[in-house]
C-alpha cells in the first residue's frame, strides 16, 4: 500500500500550502495563463497532467519572442538571423544537457516526442544489433509507445519481445526482471514512471542488473522528466527519452539522450538536410552526432520553448516540485480511498503524482463526463497501456494526474465531483 500520512482534512489545512522552501502554489498558478480561464462556467481544475501539462507564460513568451526577433533557419545561413537562431537552438541543447546532467551537449538529440525518440533507437540501434532469435526486454507497465516500436522491430528481425511482470501493487517484480535478462537480450526498454499506475521504477538497480550482462538500457522518461530530478550519469542509462509537452514545454519537440559512444556507432535515422557533411549521387558522408540524427529543419521554436520550460522548472526547483506533488498524491490517495466503492489501481510504495482508480458500478467514461461538467479534467480510458488494464482486469480507469500548479482545494473539488457521480448513478 502507498503510505498515507495522517492529515487533517478541511480548508484550514488546505490553505496552508506554502512549504518551508518558499514554494507557493498560488503564486505559481499565476504563471499559467490557462489556469485563469473558466470551463463550462467554472474554474478549470486541470488534473490531466500525465497527458500533457499546461504552459507557463515564460514558455509562451519565449516562443513568441523567437518568432518576433530571431526566426531563421539554423546551421545554414551566414546572415545575422541565421546566427541568432542557431545560437538559440544550440543554447537549448545545452540547457537540456544540464537538466539531464548529460556529459556532453552532443548527447542531446532533438526529436518530435518521446515516441519518436524510442522509434529512433529501435530503428537505428535496434536494427543494427538484433538478429533472429534475439530478445528485447520491456516491462508489463509500458506505454504503447514503448511497446509497439519494439514489436515492429522484433517482427522484422524475427526476434522476441519479453515482458517483465508486475505485482498486484503495480511494482516491477525485480527477480523476474533479472531472470529475463538473457544472453539473447540485446536491449532493455523501461518506463521511469508508469503513466497508468504512477509507479516509479527502481532504475538504478535495473540498469546495474542489465549492465552486469552487458545489455544497454533505454529509459522512457516521458512522465519522469517533469516529476523527478533526472541524472543520466548517475542512473548510467544508455538512452533517455522525453517529450517537451509533458514537461511544461511546447508540443512537437522531444529529446533523446544517448551515450556518445553508442550514438557515434549508430546508423542514421532519417535522411535529409543537416544530417550530412557531403552528398554526391555516389556517396553521402554523414554529419557528426547529434546532427546525424536531426534530418531536416527542426522545431526551432519548440526547442526555444522547451528551454524556457526547463529553466522555469529549475527556477522553482525540482525537489520543491517533487515535495509538492508527493503531498498532493498523499492527500488525494487518502481522500479518494475513503469514498465507498473506490478501488485505487496502482499502489506501489514508490509512486509519483498519478492516481488511477475505478468506482464500483460506474464506468470511468461516465465519471469523466460528469466531472467535466464541473470543470474538472481527468483522463479516462486505458491510458495507452492496455496490457496494464488487462493485468488489473479492468477495461479502463479514471486517472487524476497532478502537476506543480495543482492544489488541495482542487482535490477537494474532485472528491465532491465523485460524490456527484455517485448521486447520478445512485
Amino acid at each position, binding site marked *: 500500500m502507498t503510505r498515507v500520512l495522517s492529515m487533517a482534512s478541511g480548508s484550514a489545512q488546505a490553505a496552508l500550502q506554502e512549504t518551508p522552501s518558499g514554494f507557493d502554489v498560488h503564486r505559481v498558478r499565476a504563471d499559467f495563463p490557462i489556469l485563469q480561464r473558466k470551463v*463550462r*462556467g467554472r474554474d478549470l481544475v486541470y488534473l490531466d497532467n500525465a497527458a500533457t501539462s499546461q504552459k507557463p507564460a515564460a514558455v509562451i513568451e519565449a516562443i513568441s519572442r523567437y518568432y518576433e526577433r530571431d526566426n531563421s533557419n539554423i546551421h545554414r545561413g551566414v546572415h545575422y538571423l541565421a546566427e541568432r537562431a542557431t545560437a538559440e537552438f544550440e543554447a537549448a541543447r545545452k540547457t537540456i544537457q544540464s537538466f539531464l546532467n548529460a556529459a556532453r551537449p552532443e548527447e542531446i538529440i532533438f526529436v518530435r516526442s518521446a515516441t519518436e525518440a524510442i522509434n529512433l533507437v529501435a530503428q537505428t540501434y535496434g536494427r543494427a544489433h538484433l538478429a533472429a532469435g534475439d530478445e528485447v526486454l520491456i516491462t508489463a507497465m509500458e506505454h504503447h509507445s514503448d511497446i509497439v516500436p519494439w514489436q515492429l522491430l522484433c517482427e522484422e528481425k524475427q526476434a522476441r519481445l519479453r515482458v517483465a511482470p508486475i505485482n498486484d501493487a503495480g511494482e516491477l517484480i525485480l527477480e523476474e526482471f533479472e531472470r529475463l535478462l538473457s544472453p539473447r537480450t540485446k536491449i532493455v526498454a523501461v518506463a521511469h514512471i508508469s503513466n497508468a499506475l504512477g509507479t516509479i521504477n527502481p532504475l538504478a538497480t535495473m540498469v546495474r542488473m542489465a549492465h552486469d550482462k552487458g545489455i544497454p538500457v533505454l529509459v522512457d522518461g516521458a512522465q519522469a522528466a517533469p516529476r523527478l530530478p533526472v541524472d543520466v550519469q548517475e542512473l548510467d542509462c544508455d538512452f533517455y527519452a522525453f517529450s517537451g509537452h509533458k514537461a511544461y514545454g511546447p508540443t512537437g519537440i522531444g529529446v533523446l539522450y544517448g551515450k556518445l559512444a553508442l550514438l557515434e556507432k549508430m546508423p542514421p535515422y532519417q535522411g535529409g538536410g543537416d544530417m550530412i557533411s557531403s552528398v554526391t549521387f555516389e556517396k553521402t558522408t554523414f554529419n557528426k552526432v547529434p546532427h546525424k540524427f536531426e534530418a531536416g529543419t527542426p522545431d526551432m521554436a519548440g526547442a526555444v520553448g522547451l528551454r524556457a520550460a526547463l529553466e522555469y522548472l529549475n527556477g522553482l526547483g525540482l525537489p520543491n516540485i517533487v515535495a509538492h506533488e508527493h503531498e498532493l498524491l498523499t492527500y488525494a490517495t487518502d481522500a479518494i480511498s475513503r469514498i465507498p466503492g473506490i478501488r485505487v489501481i496502482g499502489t506501489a510504495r514508490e509512486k509519483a503524482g498519478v492516481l488511477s482508480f475505478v468506482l464500483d*458500478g*460506474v*464506468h*470511468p*467514461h*461516465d465519471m469523466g*463526463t*460528469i466531472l467535466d*461538467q464541473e470543470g474538472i479534467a481527468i483522463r*479516462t*480510458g*486505458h491510458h495507452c497501456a*492496455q496490457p496494464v*488494464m488487462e493485468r488489473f482486469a479492468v*477495461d*479502463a480507469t479514471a486517472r487524476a494526474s497532478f502537476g506543480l500548479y495543482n492544489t488541495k482545494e482542487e482535490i477537494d473539488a474532485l472528491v465532491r465531483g465523485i460524490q456527484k457521480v455517485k448521486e*447520478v*448513478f445512485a
Partner: protein
Amino acid sequence: MADLRDLYQELILEHSKAPRNYRQLAGADHKAEGFNPLCGDHFTVYLKMDGDSIQDIAFQGSGCAISKASASMMTQSIKGKTKEQAKELFEHFHRTVTGTANGDGSDLGKLTVFAGVSEFPTRVKCATLAWHTLQAALEGSQESVSTE
C-alpha cells in the same frame, strides 16, 4: 450549458443497470464484435435472421452507461425489423445523437432519450457503438468494427 440530466436520463440509467437481451444467443447465425479503442468498450452483437428480417437479437460486453443502454434499447427496437428498416432506424438515430435530425418527423420511439447525447460530442461514439456493430453483423462481415 449542457445538462447532465439530458444525457443521463432515467431510462438510460435504468437500461445501463439492467440491460435487456443481454446474453449469448443460442443458434445465432450472425455475429459481430465492436470496439471503441479510446475507452475500451467492447460489445458482441448476435443475430438470428429469418430471411431478411431480424428474428432475434442479443448482445454482451462491457462499456459505459451510454453505450450499454444504447445497445440494450437497440435490441428492443430492432427485433422483428427487416434489414432495411434497421438500417433506416440507425441513420435516424445517428442524426439524432449528432444533432442533425432537424426534426424530420419519423418516429424513433423510446430511442429519442438519446437526443441529449448531441450536446456531448465526445459521447456520440458511445451511443453508436452497438449500432455500428449491428450493421457489421447484418452485413455478415467477420471483422470486428471499431468506432475510431
